[in-house]
């Protein structure tokens, strides 16, 4: 077991290191770095010597290898460089914006899970007929809707037409209702899809027939025997759902004008603020890797069948 944990942690660290390196190569090592782009602008009226001095101040003039070593050392100590646009440390920007994005994404995740369970439960109610296939096709509809358009439409319907949620100066929580819904809908789709597929699969297992033969009702079988078995595999896509949540945050924060990591990323692209984007890319890769690692390590604890298998291996 210890060896398994050790190798999985090692693998995760390797992926993380490679993600950092790729993002570094993509974003930092290219000719015409961000410092040059910003200060070459004639508006600043700087001459070549002054630009060289600024580049030296930003550590942008060393060799690529030197910069790489320098940057990786800084990242390890939590120093993500300076935002050229805002003129403050990237770590300060992240610290200021992270809480609101985590709150938004957390609420959206809860809403998505609820929605997915509702879809799964509804489509397994007996006697639905046509309605059942409609409910089952909802996830494929949800993933076909552009998230940004969904957000705009929700504002249009709930704020402008029905006047249920104010868009101008909403309360702190009121303002989160539509953004959370906007992210939750596409995130719920994969969860619901996996739940539906798993429920169908578990229903064909022998132990379900046994339970039925003993006289259990359909509802009882679903809650008592199927639910637990169908829910667990959703964990395996946790990392992917995280990516979906993050993408949702980028788009909804832009559409709804909220502050957060998402709008920070959008602004970074607009102003070619490479340091900010790289920090966000590396941190989200770290989060993805951590989530997958946690799932891999937790799964055998939650699923005794795997634990037994692992015990045999180790």
């Amino acid at each position, binding site marked *: 077991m210890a060896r398994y944990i050790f190798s999985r942690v090692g693998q995760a660290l390797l992926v993380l290191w490679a993600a950092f390196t790729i993002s570094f190569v993509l974003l930092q090592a290219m000719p015409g770095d961000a410092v040059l782009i910003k200060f070459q602008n004639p508006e600043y009226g700087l001459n070549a010597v002054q630009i060289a001095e600024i580049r030296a101040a930003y550590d942008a003039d060393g060799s690529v290898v030197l910069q790489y070593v320098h940057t990786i050392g800084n990242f390890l100590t939590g120093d993500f460089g300076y935002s050229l646009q805002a003129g403050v440390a990237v770590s300060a920007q992240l610290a200021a914006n992270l809480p609101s994005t985590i709150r938004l994404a957390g609420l959206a995740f809860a809403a998505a899970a609820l929605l997915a369970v509702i879809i799964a439960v509804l489509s397994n109610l007996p006697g639905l007929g046509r309605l059942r296939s409609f409910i089952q096709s909802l996830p494929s509809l949800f993933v076909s809707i552009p998230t940004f358009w969904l957000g705009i439409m929700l504002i249009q319907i709930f704020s402008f037409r029905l006047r249920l949620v104010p868009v101008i100066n909403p309360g702190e929580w009121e303002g989160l209702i539509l953004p959370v819904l906007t992210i939750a809908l596409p995130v719920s789709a994969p969860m619901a899809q996996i739940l539906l597929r798993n429920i169908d699969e578990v229903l064909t297992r022998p132990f379900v027939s046994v339970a039925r033969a003993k006289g259990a009702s359909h509802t009882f079988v679903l809650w008592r025997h199927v639910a637990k078995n169908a829910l667990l595999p959703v964990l395996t896509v946790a990392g992917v759902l995280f990516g979906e949540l993050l993408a949702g945050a980028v788009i909804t924060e832009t559409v709804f004008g909220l502050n957060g990591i998402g709008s920070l990323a959008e602004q970074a692209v607009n102003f070619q603020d490479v340091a900010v984007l790289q920090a966000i890319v590396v941190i989200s890769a770290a989060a993805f890797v951590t989530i997958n690692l946690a799932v891999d390590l937790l799964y055998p604890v939650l699923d005794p069948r795997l634990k037994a*298998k692992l015990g045999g291996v180790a």
Partner: protein
Amino acid sequence: MTILDTAERHRNIDSPNPLDWISPAPAAEEAVGAPAKVRAKPILIQPGLVLAYIILAVALLWAVAPGLFTSYDPVQGLPGQQLKAPSALHFLGTDALGRDLYTRLVYGALHSLSGAVAAVAIGLLVGTALGVIAGSVGGWIDEVIMRLVDVLLSIPVLLLSLSIIILLGFGTVNAAIAVGFTSIASFARLVRSEVVSVRRSEYVEAAFGSGGTFFKVLWRHVLPNSLTSVIAFTALQVGSAILQLSTLGFLGYGAPPPTPEWGLLIAEGRNYIATAWWLTAAPGVVVVLVVLAVNRVSQAIGRAQQ
């Protein structure tokens, strides 16, 4: 490999893209002995599929011959016709510059669809090449390529495409490259797993046994047999690419304005959401319909192959 092999069975996921998950269920379903699903229904009894083909045909015709569908100009506005509500003359209304929205949607098909096809072509070509190399050569090359794929998959798709955009700059072509880049990893992983399983089959062994060279066997037997399941996945990726491109277009990273790209149309209409909601609603509905149609067709291809 890892204990997650059992869990792997439950997921049909090789990519961070949720659209990919709706791909045809893995063979596990049959293995369990589930009652055979209704497959390959005659086309007439599948109204959804017929509808999907019709939508795609219309969208393609829009892209190929927009002049057949409308007589207005997509870029030049009509004076005095600003922000008109839908009517017989402009049946989806006009925008703030007096341009007919329906016309802009028709002409936009070319930008949105060709961008998506180009993006998927990049992912398909590079991803397939990497997957075939990894799967057929094996050894440390396989190891390196697949770790690289793991890394690419660990970065959320949108952030990866934003990284490419910040590197290459804005524009139609760059947006397509960015979207294509994000699908390389999923293609590579899928193709590799197919190649590995085909390589183990007896007919490949027989081909080697009867004196086939490595490349000849690869070209004649392994490649064609590995690519069948890639077709359905490719179709699925087109739908996802349309969505991603419209997102980049909406954020302003794709084609510059007056281009009638669908995502950009939504972004432009957004400023008039309170007074002219159809400017935002109509392009979105078109995107949803086309993506749904592409996904439906991809699903049908996947079922037909099983």
